[in-house]
């Protein structure tokens, strides 16, 4: 039990992140609907973000914000979660947002012009 707990503590977020990553990739690679593909891409990004957060965290970490009660440094050792990946995640989320917005716009335009959301049907008559 203890071993399982330690295992879960150590691995659960990484495993979860990878599972989300895999699910997103699967959706992207198998669904022909454009919107579903975009959703898949979004899920992949979520997986990546979770992965980055996970490597910043350890079971005994505290939040990286100085407050009156929250001690980030104990005996010269930092005990908080790693703030750097968190800030990177912040950036990555915004970038993902931008990509998604653009993708959705393109999808809307594609539906307008091709009249379909099936990726297989988005092609020109003459190759």
């Amino acid at each position: 039990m203890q071993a399982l707990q330690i295992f879960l503590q150590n691995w659960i977020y990484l495993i979860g992140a990878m599972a989300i990553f895999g699910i997103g990739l699967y959706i992207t690679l198998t669904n022909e609907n454009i919107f579903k593909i975009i959703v898949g891409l979004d899920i992949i990004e979520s997986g990546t973000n979770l992965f980055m957060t996970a490597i910043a965290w350890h079971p005994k970490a505290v939040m990286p914000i100085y407050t009156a009660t929250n001690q980030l440094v104990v005996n010269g050792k930092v005990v908080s979660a790693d703030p750097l990946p968190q800030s990177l995640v912040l950036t990555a989320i915004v970038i993902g947002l931008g990509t998604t917005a653009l993708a959705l716009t393109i999808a809307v335009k594609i539906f307008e012009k091709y009249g379909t959301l099936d990726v297989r049907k988005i092609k020109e008559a003459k190759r």
Partner: protein
Amino acid sequence: MRNDTPALVKRITALSLITILLIGFFLAFKEMPKGSAVNVNQRVSRLYVMKNVETATKMMENGKFFAKGIKPLRTDVPYTPITFGKSKNLEDGAANVVTSIVVDYRGFDTLGEVTVLFLAATGVAMLLFGKEKKRKNKTEPSLIMYVGTRISFAIIFLFGIYIFVHGHLTPGGGFPGGAVIASGILGLFLGKNGYKPNHLGLKVFESLSGMAFVIIGLTGLFSVHSFLANFLPTGVIGDLYSAGFIGLIYIAIGMKVGAELSAVVNSMIVDVEEEWS
């Protein structure tokens, strides 16, 4: 793999590919420091948390930072204790370390991030550009909806401002704040059919706030000789008026993000006729 590959084949292939990829990941994870062994003290973040980068820089110039074999001893950087509400003149006065990294230590990233968002909004608007035909709401919202969104907009707006003003003290900052404001504006869209925000105002707001960010950066360049360098006093940790230019930048970012996301919502909600003639 072709355009007309059957779905089953695709699924099986995708599954096997993903399985192999995940196995690869897990094999790689086995070599990672595990769990509690995620040693922040050996990462560069330690210096950010301790607000100790300048000391490290001096050590580096003295040649003590990198040990033999170029192994950095980040643990060796001496530590000056920080007390909430008391410590002054820290190299970066923000209580929220993440914020201090986002805006100050790695502020350049954030500038890029703002640009990405700006570009995405621009791209969305560019692709959806055209002569306005009609709004997309099918049904007229009820009176409660109309009144409710208008009342809650003020509260949401205020909350958004609170979030990005306190970005350096609490979780949050310009991006969440801006998103909150944009959600308020989205409420306005929902509340009234044919709601038109002030396009010119949004555009000017967006541009000016973006320019404000760059101008703050350039001010740093011309006053402290480094782009995006803090040129304001850092104050006491935990005060609202602390952390130098972080607050200013977050205000700019918050306004910009709010305006941009509103513009995105506006663009997407409108049906247009293209002007390619």
